[in-house]
């Protein structure tokens, strides 16, 4: 019953739309490559599957590249790579941000000050140049995991700073004081009194870290700092640009990966509308009531007209 309540359909329409887009992309990433090769007989790596730069047709739904590769097959395979990089990079970055932010915010004295200094130093190191330097050093070795790792390890400081600020404001609230008097241990106070109040922040940090990682991966590949032999949204854009797809009017090559990146950003933004409910039981209850009331109101209007 508890699980049912957690899995219920979100009431907020924006959140619902965002979730649908996200789930659709995840499903494509999981089954897309298999489906495309089974139904259409196409794979991302096969050269000369068709003629160069064919526009969309029944055989190549999204046309072909200059090397005659099937764009649809590349897109679904690229979705898998890009989402993997996004989720892994986002998870690494969010975990580091929460750990360092909450601990540096909650602990006082030398340890807290040291940790804060560490976060601040990382905060002023410009992320993108650092990312480019490390990525050009690894030169695409290690595949997508390496890319995700590099992105995750360089993108946490901003999030950590936000968590720290929020923890600082929470640590002196009365209920934290009261928990201390109630004999709670430090670890328990952090995990069960303070951290749940950070849930919306953590959720939105994660969402945007995922999008940020996907964009960073695309950016890296686009400027050629990635491994051009992997297939991802970024490498598709890289090849489309270097082969002059825009000049030859081959919109089917660069538009789909670009739209996909825009789509996942939109989905994250929409889902973010719902995260406030995570840490406020009152919002959950109120939401139920208002939607019921709204339902009744529409029924009444329908009856009257």
């Amino acid at each position: 019953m508890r699980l049912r309540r957690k899995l219920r359909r979100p009431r907020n329409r924006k959140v619902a739309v965002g979730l649908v887009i996200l789930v659709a992309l995840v499903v494509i990433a999981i089954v897309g490559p298999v489906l495309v090769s089974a139904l259409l007989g196409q794979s991302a790596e096969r050269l000369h599957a068709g003629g160069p730069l064919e526009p969309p047709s029944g055989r190549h739904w999204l046309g072909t590249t200059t090397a005659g590769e099937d764009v649809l097959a590349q897109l679904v395979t690229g979705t898998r790579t890009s989402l993997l990089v996004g989720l892994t990079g986002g998870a690494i970055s969010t975990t580091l941000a929460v750990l360092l932010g909450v601990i540096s915010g909650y602990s006082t004295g030398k340890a807290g000050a040291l940790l804060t200094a560490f976060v601040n130093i990382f905060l002023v190191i410009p992320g993108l140049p650092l990312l480019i330097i490390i990525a050009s050093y690894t030169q695409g070795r290690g595949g997508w995991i390496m890319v995700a790792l590099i992105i995750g390890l360089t993108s946490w400081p901003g999030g950590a700073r936000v968590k720290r600020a929020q923890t600082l404001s929470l640590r002196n609230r009365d209920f934290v004081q009261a928990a201390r008097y109630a004999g709670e241990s430090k670890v328990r106070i952090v995990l069960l009194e303070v951290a749940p109040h950070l849930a919306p922040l953590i959720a939105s940090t994660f969402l945007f870290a995922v999008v940020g990682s996907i964009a960073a991966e695309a950016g890296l590949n686009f400027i050629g700092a990635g491994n051009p032999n992997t297939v991802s949204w970024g490498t598709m854009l890289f090849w489309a640009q270097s082969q002059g797809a825009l000049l030859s009017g081959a919109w089917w090559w660069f538009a789909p990966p670009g739209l996909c990146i825009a789509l996942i950003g939109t989905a994250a933004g929409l889902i973010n509308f719902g995260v406030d409910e995570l840490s406020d039981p009152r919002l959950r209850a109120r939401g139920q009531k208002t939607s019921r009331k709204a339902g009744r109101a529409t029924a009444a209007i329908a009856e009257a007209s």
Partner: protein
Amino acid sequence: MSSTEAILEAVAVTKRIPLHGRDRGRVVHALNGVDLTLRRGQILALVGESGSGKSTLARLLALGDLPTGGEIRFAGKPIRRADRRAHFGRVQMVLQDPFSSLNNLHRVRYILSRPLRNFGRTPAADLERRVLDLLERVNLTPADDFIDKYPHELSGGQRQRIAIARALAAEPAVLLGDEPVSMLDVSIRLDILNLLAELRNRDGLAMLYITHDIASARYFADEISVMYAGHIVETGPVEQVTQDPKHPYTKLLLAASPDPDRPTASSGSDDLDDLDEEDLAEPPNLLAEPTGCPFAHRCPHATPTCSTEAPPTHTFTTGHWTRCWLYP
């Protein structure tokens, strides 16, 4: 009255709070050599203006913070930092604002079961029954209706009862109330005070009742201590202090609070005739090193000695004393 056993004492407690930022290097003299004694089965009211150190003193008594000088004694033994956990089990605090002292993410069941587990080592099987007992002790009945509620589903008075129940869960010997009723509606203040008095009578709790409301202190407490700028200026049985205040600050404080029973409250009170309101509005400077009587700059009876030498303690009857140069 003072024959009753002392349970929690502050002995010559001093607290200095260092400032940060622009005022770095300066300190706030929050408490200056404060003595206070809580006795089993008795309620001590602590009154004084905002910033006089009432809450700081309560926090030190609860060991939420450590004194800079002096010591806190429980049953005659000084308490150190290492005893903190055990001290929390014996001395509990009820905070002022029930809207911020309960974590709104937890149900009543969780809030009350935590101290039961931490201090009482209550086995999991007994938890529910103990939580229901606690709810009944603070008159939240039927207890079954309240156990699964979130704080936002409760009124201010109900929330404060939960906060009191949480403090009682540790089975403390002392309850420290930092203005426990000031955030509540006037209509339910009396309920909460009666509840606290009942707990005192039944369980023999010692209580500290911090308040701005002298009328409720008189109704509720046995003894009263008056604080000014981190000093206790007068202590005594509540009737004696409110009917026959000795310290000029106590007189001023009583004159400022309406009480139909007190004849001296009228504006024609001879003692306060010569008060110039303009001069007296100035708050004490807590940043300066305390010398002499803290009230000297506002006192209508001030003499040059007052601002240079600390006034002696003068005892009138048993348990009623003040620190003032007026009483040699």
